[in-house]
C-alpha cells in the first residue's frame, strides 16, 4: 500500500506509470552522469549551502506569504494567501530551479548552458544565472513566442544570452524544447541543458521538483506562523508544472490539505484550442518522459493553445500525471477569458500585476472561493509578475502602447 505520496520517483525515474527516460542513446550516458552528480550533490552540505546562500542573497528568498485581504473581502468566502514568487529576482519562481541546475552544471564541469523558454521567464532566469557564473548561454524560443514576449527577449540579450528563434512546428515551447534537445545531442560533451519545468527525462522531473520545493517548505512555515495551522487548499497553475509541484510536494502527505492544479483551458475544453493535457489528453511519450499529452489518435502531437505562453505546452510533468491518476491532486481548468478577468481583478484590487500563468490559478479561486466558508484557508502560488504580459493585455483591450 502507498504510505507516502512523496517517495517518488523509483530508481528508474518512474512515478507510477509515468516518467522514465525516453531519450536518444547519445544522451543516455550524460543522463546517467547527471543522476549520479545530483545524488552526490544532494548529500553534499557544501552544495546545499551554496544553493541556499544564493537563494537568500541573489534571489531574495524567502519570498513573502501575503494575505490578500481585499481580494478575500471582494470574493466574500475563503481567506486567500499569495505565495509571492513574483517578488523573486527576475520576477518568477523559475530562478529557484536555475540556481540549482547551474550549480550542478559547474559541479559536472560543463562550460556551456542551453535552455528552452516559452513565456521567456525561464529564459531570463537561465540567462541570469549564466551571467552570474560567466558561462555562455543559448536560449531556444519559438518564433511566435518571441513576438508575444518582446521585453523578455530583450532582457535575455542584455544578460548576454543568444536567443535562437525556432521556426519549426507550432513555433512555441514544444518546438523550442525539440531544438534544445537537438543542440544538446550535438554538443553533449560540454553542454548542460537547464530544463525549465518538472518534465523531461529522469532525473529532471525529480531535481526540478526538489529545487522548487523551497516554495512549499517556506509556505508551510509561513502559514503556520500566520494562522497556526495548515492551509485547507493549495492552488497553482500547471503548464509543465514546476511551480505547482514546488508548492504541493511538501504538503502531499498532509491529508487535510486539498490541492488544485489549474490547467489552461484556452478557448474552452470543448474546443481544440487549449493546453489542458490532463483534462483533454491521453498518456504518451514526448520529450523524454511518459505523461499525458495532447495528441491525435495516431500519436501525433497537437498544438496547444493558451493566452499564456508559459502554459502553451501539450504535455505536463510526469509527477502531476501520477498525482492525477491516484487522485491526490485535482486538476481543474480555467479559460483564457477567465485568466484575463482574474489578471485585471488582482491588479485593481490588490495592486499586484500577476503573470498570466498564475492568473489561471486565481481564476479558479475567483470561481470557487465565494462558496467556501470564511475560515477556509486557501494558499495560491503567485508564481510570477505580469509586467511581461501587459502587451498581450493591451492588445486584448484594444490599447496601443
Amino acid at each position, binding site marked *: 500500500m502507498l504510505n507516502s505520496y512523496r517517495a517518488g520517483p523509483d530508481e528508474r525515474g518512474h512515478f507510477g506509470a509515468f516518467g522514465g527516460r525516453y531519450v536518444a542513446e547519445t544522451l543516455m550516458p550524460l543522463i546517467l552522469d547527471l543522476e549520479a552528480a545530483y545524488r552526490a550533490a544532494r548529500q553534499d552540505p557544501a552544495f546545499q549551502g551554496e544553493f541556499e546562500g544564493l537563494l537568500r542573497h541573489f534571489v531574495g528568498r524567502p519570498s513573502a506569504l501575503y494575505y490578500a485581504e481585499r481580494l478575500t473581502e471582494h470574493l466574500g468566502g475563503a481567506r486567500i494567501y499569495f505565495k509571492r514568487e513574483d517578488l523573486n529576482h527576475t520576477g518568477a519562481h523559475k530562478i529557484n530551479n536555475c540556481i540549482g541546475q547551474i550549480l550542478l552544471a559547474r559541479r559536472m564541469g560543463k562550460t556551456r548552458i542551453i535552455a528552452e523558454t516559452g513565456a521567456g521567464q525561464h529564459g531570463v532566469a537561465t540567462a541570469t544565472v549564466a551571467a552570474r557564473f560567466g558561462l555562455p548561454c543559448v536560449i531556444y524560443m519559438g518564433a511566435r513566442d518571441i513576438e508575444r514576449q518582446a521585453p523578455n527577449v530583450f532582457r535575455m540579450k542584455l544578460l548576454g544570452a543568444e536567443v535562437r528563434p525556432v521556426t519549426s512546428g507550432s513555433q512555441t515551447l514544444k518546438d523550442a524544447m525539440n531544438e534544445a534537445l537537438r543542440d544538446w545531442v550535438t554538443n553533449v560533451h560540454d553542454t548542460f541543458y537547464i530544463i525549465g519545468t518538472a518534465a523531461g527525462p529522469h532525473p529532471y522531473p525529480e531535481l526540478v521538483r526538489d529545487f522548487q520545493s523551497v516554495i512549499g517548505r517556506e509556505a508551510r512555515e509561513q502559514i503556520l506562523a500566520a494562522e497556526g495551522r495548515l492551509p485547507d487548499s493549495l492552488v497553482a497553475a500547471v503548464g509543465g508544472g514546476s511551480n505547482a509541484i514546488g508548492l504541493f510536494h511538501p504538503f502531499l502527505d498532509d491529508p487535510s490539505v486539498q490541492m488544485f492544479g489549474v490547467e489552461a483551458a484556452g478557448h474552452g475544453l470543448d474546443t481544440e484550442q487549449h493546453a489542458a493535457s490532463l483534462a483533454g489528453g491521453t498518456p504518451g*511519450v514526448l520529450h523524454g518522459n511518459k505523461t499525458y499529452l495532447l495528441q491525435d489518435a495516431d500519436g501525433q502531437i497537437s498544438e496547444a493553445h493558451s493566452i499564456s505562453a508559459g502554459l502553451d505546452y501539450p504535455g505536463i510533468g510526469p509527477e502531476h500525471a501520477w498525482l492525477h491518476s491516484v487522485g491526490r491532486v485535482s486538476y481543474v481548468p480555467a479559460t483564457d477569458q477567465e485568466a484575463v478577468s482574474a489578471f485585471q481583478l488582482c491588479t485593481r484590487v490588490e495592486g499586484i500585476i500577476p503573470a498570466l500563468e498564475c492568473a489561471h490559478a486565481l481564476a479558479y479561486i475567483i470561481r470557487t472561493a465565494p462558496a467556501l466558508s470564511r475560515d477556509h484557508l486557501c494558499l495560491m502560488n503567485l508564481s510570477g509578475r505580469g509586467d511581461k504580459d501587459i502587451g498581450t493585455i493591451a492588445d486584448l483591450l484594444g490599447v496601443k502602447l
Partner: protein
Amino acid sequence: MSDRIAARFTALKEEGRAGLVTFITAGDPDLATSAAILAALPAAGADIIELGVPFTDPMADGPAIQEANLRALAAGISLRKILGLVRDFRATDDATPIVLMGYFNPIHAYGVDAFVADARAAGVDGLIVVDVPPEEDIEIGVPARAAGLHFVRLATPTTDEKRMPAVVNAASGFLYYVSVAGITGGATGEATAVGAAVERLKAAGNLPVVVGFGIKTPEQAAATARLADGVVVGSAIVSLIGEAARTGATDIPARVAAMVSGLAAGVRSARSSEVAA
C-alpha cells in the same frame, strides 16, 4: 521464421562487401510516390531499407528529415498506412529487409502488442525506436522480439565501455553506429575513430555493424564501406525527394533510383578495391 536480415548479411559476407542501407520517410511526399520509391530501391542497389515513421516532433533529426516528416503527415500518412506500404512491397519482394525507424509515441498510440503483431504480419523485419533506450526496453524491445521482430539498437560516440553492455544486450539483427554525436543530416564521423568504434562494437555485440549519419556521396559511402558491414544513407536521399517534390517533379522514384545506384556503386567498389589491394 525466415530471417531476412540475417540472410542478407550472410549473402553480403559471401559477396565480400558491405551493404547499402537506404532510409526514406514513409509517405513522403505522398503515399503513392512513396510506394513507387520503395519498390525502386532494391533494383537500384539498396540492400536493406529503413522506412522512417513520421512524427510531429522528431527530436533527433535534422531539418531534412523534419521536413520530410511534416510533408508525409500533411499528406495523411499513418502507421496503419505504413504497414500497408510494407505489405504491398512484400507482394513483389520477399528478400529485402525492411526496418521501421522512428519515435515511440505513434507506436504507443497504435498499441504496442497490436503493432508488433501487425508489423510482423505485414513483413517488417526490425524496429529502430530512437527514443527508447535499453532502460525502457520493456516498453517495446521485449514485445518486439517476442513477436519475432529484430530490435536494432543505436550506439554512438558517447557509448563508452561502461555503457557498451547495456547497448549490446538484447540487441538483435544488427547494430547501428551513429558516427557523430548529433542529429541526422549533419557532419559525418572521422574514419579512424569510426573504424575503432566499429571494431569495439563487433567484439562486444557479435552482430553486423552498420554506420550512418552525414554520409551523402558515393565517395563517403565507399569510405565507410571499408570500415563496416553496412552504410546508411538517409538525409541525402530525403533531401533529394524534398527538393524534387518542391519543384513538382513527376519522376521522383527515378531520381531516387539514380542517386541510390551511385551510392551502391560506391559501396560495391570499396570492398573489391580492397581485395585488389
